[in-house]
């Protein structure tokens, strides 16, 4: 892990996301979007790390990210996703879901579409209308699924004014995050430690499956699905615990890994190298989990920062499907062979790392210390 560049940007960053590359493209990631929070005026911004044609003597511009354009956003940006190359969808603390459109020719952002009352506690019809923050978004062109503190799930389609489907009171607690399993199935995590799978083909308002942790019902804050194996899901909890689940088998997690000292805000499988996983947390650290089994004798190490203790608590699922030709290293049942190398990527401890994203060899993350970190050499 080599150069990681930090830039202070005068706003606390709640979300960072790489712009997706066109399919089949050989380029590396160049543009990312950020959302801010807790300001009187919050902004959605686009940044570029590309060359500007004038490197100084020691190639100084290589890491420095430059602001391309930004636009004011009403409320905190609770989640941000790229819908496609030009459109960004944001979730607001005012309960509004907005689609922004980027105009590359004059480098501006504009509001393309908005669902202002996507999430609320008491509806817009009633006199005591109160909105609820929208906490999570997932996109799969042309569909957008949103979840919020009101326990509601919305299914929107771009360019449709009304929601296609709404599940009211899907959950009695707050839904923190959502991800697609196999379309049309989605998976949500909530603040009483449950994963719920919803099938949009079914008519009812009940989840098709509920999974939960044994023991304490620790709230779950983030979820990500394995890019290739759609039944493998990773979640991060309020106690900093990383859990790996196999949703086809049983209702309990396959692995529980004690990770951070505080809330884990985001977990991401690397999209093209899924043996690598990244987590970031309120405790101000960002970890890279490497479960690739290239090196046979890799022992469990924790690099950087003088922390010498190692964490691996592995509960084994005894229903491993041995017929599967490709066994995910995250679900491996052999603790002797299974070693995970964990590296902390940030140079020093900082305030909370709220968000991260990985694409190819590039990683971007944003912190409450109002800094954005970018590296283009993740695997060197």
């Amino acid at each position, binding site marked *: 892990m080599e150069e990681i560049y930090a830039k*202070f*940007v*005068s*706003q*606390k960053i709640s979300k960072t996301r790489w712009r997706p590359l066109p399919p089949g493209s050989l380029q590396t990631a160049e543009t990312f979007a950020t959302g801010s*929070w*807790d*300001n*009187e005026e919050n902004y959605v911004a686009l940044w570029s790390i590309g060359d500007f044609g004038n490197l100084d003597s020691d190639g100084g511009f290589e890491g420095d990210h430059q602001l391309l354009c930004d636009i004011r956003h009403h409320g*905190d940006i*609770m989640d941000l996703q790229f819908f496609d190359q030009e459109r960004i969808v944001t979730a607001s*603390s005012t309960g509004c879901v907005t689609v922004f459109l980027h105009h590359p020719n004059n480098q501006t952002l504009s509001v393309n579409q908005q669902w202002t009352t996507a999430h609320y*506690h*008491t509806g817009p019809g009633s006199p005591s209308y*109160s909105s*609820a*923050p929208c*906490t999570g978004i997932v996109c799969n062109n042309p569909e957008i699924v949103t979840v919020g*503190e*009101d*326990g509601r799930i919305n299914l929107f389609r771009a360019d449709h004014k009304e929601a296609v489907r709404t599940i009211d009171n899907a*959950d*009695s*607690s*707050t839904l923190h995050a959502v991800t697609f399993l196999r379309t049309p199935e989605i998976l949500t995590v*909530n*603040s*009483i*430690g*449950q994963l*719920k799978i919803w099938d949009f083909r079914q008519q009812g308002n009940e*989840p098709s499956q*509920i999974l*939960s942790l*044994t*023991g*304490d*019902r620790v*709230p779950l804050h983030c979820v990500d699905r394995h890019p290739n194996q759609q039944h493998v899901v990773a979640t991060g909890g*309020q106690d900093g615990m990383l859990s790996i689940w196999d949703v086809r088998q049983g209702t309990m997690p396959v692995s529980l890994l004690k990770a951070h000292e*505080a*809330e884990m805000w985001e977990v991401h499988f690397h999209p093209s190298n899924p043996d690598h996983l990244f987590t970031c947390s*309120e405790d101000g650290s960002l970890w890279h989990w490497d479960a690739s089994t290239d090196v046979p004798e890799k022992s469990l190490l924790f690099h950087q920062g003088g922390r010498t203790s190692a964490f691996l608590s592995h509960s084994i699922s005894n229903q491993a499907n041995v017929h599967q030709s490709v066994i995910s290293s995250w679900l491996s049942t052999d603790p002797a062979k299974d070693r995970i190398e964990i590296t902390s990527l940030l140079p*020093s401890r*900082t*305030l*909370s790392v709220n968000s991260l994203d990985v694409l190819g060899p590039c990683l971007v993350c944003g912190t*409450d*210390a*109002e*800094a954005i970190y970018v590296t283009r050499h993740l695997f060197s």
Partner: protein
Amino acid sequence: MGFHQFGQACLELLTLDDLPTLLIPGVNSKKHQMCFDWGPGEMLVCETSFNKKEKSEMVPSCPFIYIIRKDVDVYSQVLRKLFNESHGIFVGLQRIEEELTGKSRKSQLVRVSKNYRSVIRACMEEMHQVAIAAKDPASGRQFSSQVSILSAMELIWNLCEILFIEVAPAGPLLLHLLDWVRLHVCEVDSLSADVLGSENPSKHESFWNLPGNTQTLTELELKWQHWHEECERYLQDCTFASNPHLESLCKIMLGDEAALLEQKELLSNWYHFLVTRLLYSNPTVKPIDLQYYAQSSLDLFLGGESSPEPLDNILMAAFEFDIHQVIKECSIALSNWWFVAHLTDLLDHCKLLQSHNLYFGSNMREFLLLEYASGLFAHPSLWQLGVDYFDYCPELGRVSLELHIERIPLNTEQKALKVLRICEQRQMTEQVRSICKILAMKAVRNNRLGSALSWSIRAKDAAFATLVSDRFLRDYCERGCFSDLDLIDNLGPAMMLSDRLTFLGKYREFHRVYGEKRFADAASLLLSLMTSQIAPRSFWMTLLTDALPLLEQKQVIFSAEQTYELMQCLEDLTSGKPVHGGSDTQQCQDDDIETTKVEMLRLALARNLARAIVREGSLEGS
């Protein structure tokens, strides 16, 4: 006690003429009186209906309430970077404090000081860019003045670093001062060019070529003395009489003040003059002698035409090694506590404040840090930085944090979680409970019972968990079915938090077991709910009514023993009930229903008892 003295000292130095005035738009202060109230970092002002001269009008003419913020710097985009970056340096310094020992200590502290200065310079550079790019001249001027303030801050800090932190001794002292001036004043380069082009460049170079400091101070002094005498001889011999330029150059090299002052345009300020003068008249000046040269340089340079500015006073105080005066003057001159708070903290780590007047010296660092952190808490976003500053104020930091953190507005759960994490890490259990209670109440009001329960679990608030369970039970009684089954069915160990919650979980379990037609298990569960006293008395009737279908089943479910217990419960319930006065027909109808229910139960229990006795009797027989 120390804080009052310090504040008093600051106030004494201010006169009414010094105080800035701000006109509130829309308020006619001549006609109406204004009222105000202090907040943590702001002031509320509005017009009242009290009239100074005429009769009071009913309604004030200006309908607005104004919020006046004292600290505008906190809202500057560029200065925010200064606050964030310096926060990292500050926290890093506190953390390595234990590791700072021995010889490396000074160099590490110097490194920290240089870090702070590079952050100021980066900020200055960016502010300069913003000033150039500013669209209207007024804001451009404002940014430019910010740049000069930052430049002055860096100037002062740099001097403090040389004199107090680096503690440069005689010899290197002047080199540091030369660098200092060179860094801040561009014109000095042209002057040194003139000097180096003079008659004795070789002597100059060999004199100042001290990379390894192989010469001792005495050797240096002797060499310089020798060179100085040679120059004087040249002057007296009128070697340069033909060329007035060379003659004045020679006088300059001898440190002649008059000659130097003739070049006043090249010397931008008195400290530049001071350093140049020292370079030629006393390059091995000792730190304690600096102040005399400084005072006379200031007087000579100003020449009685102008009076010293605040910056001059601060620098003079530094040359006099009066740290307290430096900090006091800076506090007054600067609008924001950032500079004095960080500089004082660093000087405190250099153990410089204790040796001075302990009267309020030992508390000064904490006073300034508290002021700075409180200012941060007044900002909607920068409060997170303030937390760490309070952490490192041993006397009043914790209680200040407790007061401030409860007042942060929590508009999303994620922000609430961050605040809670801060409180939990510092074992502020009272604040955790109060914040969780507020959030749980909000959730209950929004009918988010699962969230409410989640907050009560976090705060380990049994009373609130009871409240939430009562809500569920009430909903069940009203609707006949449970809402939010996903929550109740999956309570897990949280069920133990409160008796009512346990009851709720077990009661739901009873329904589930009944639904699975495991009647014997359902029956014993139901009985245990009543006999174990965790069921609230108000619910007993419902439980007994739930027992009815089990009593009416074809096969005997409750044993005789169990039936006796049920009957006991029924009697307990009915005997304790007060007799209603029969005030209205509705009450009478309810009473009728109650009586019917009780009678039905008695009948069912009696029948079941009979069947149970017969069954048990005959089984034993065979």
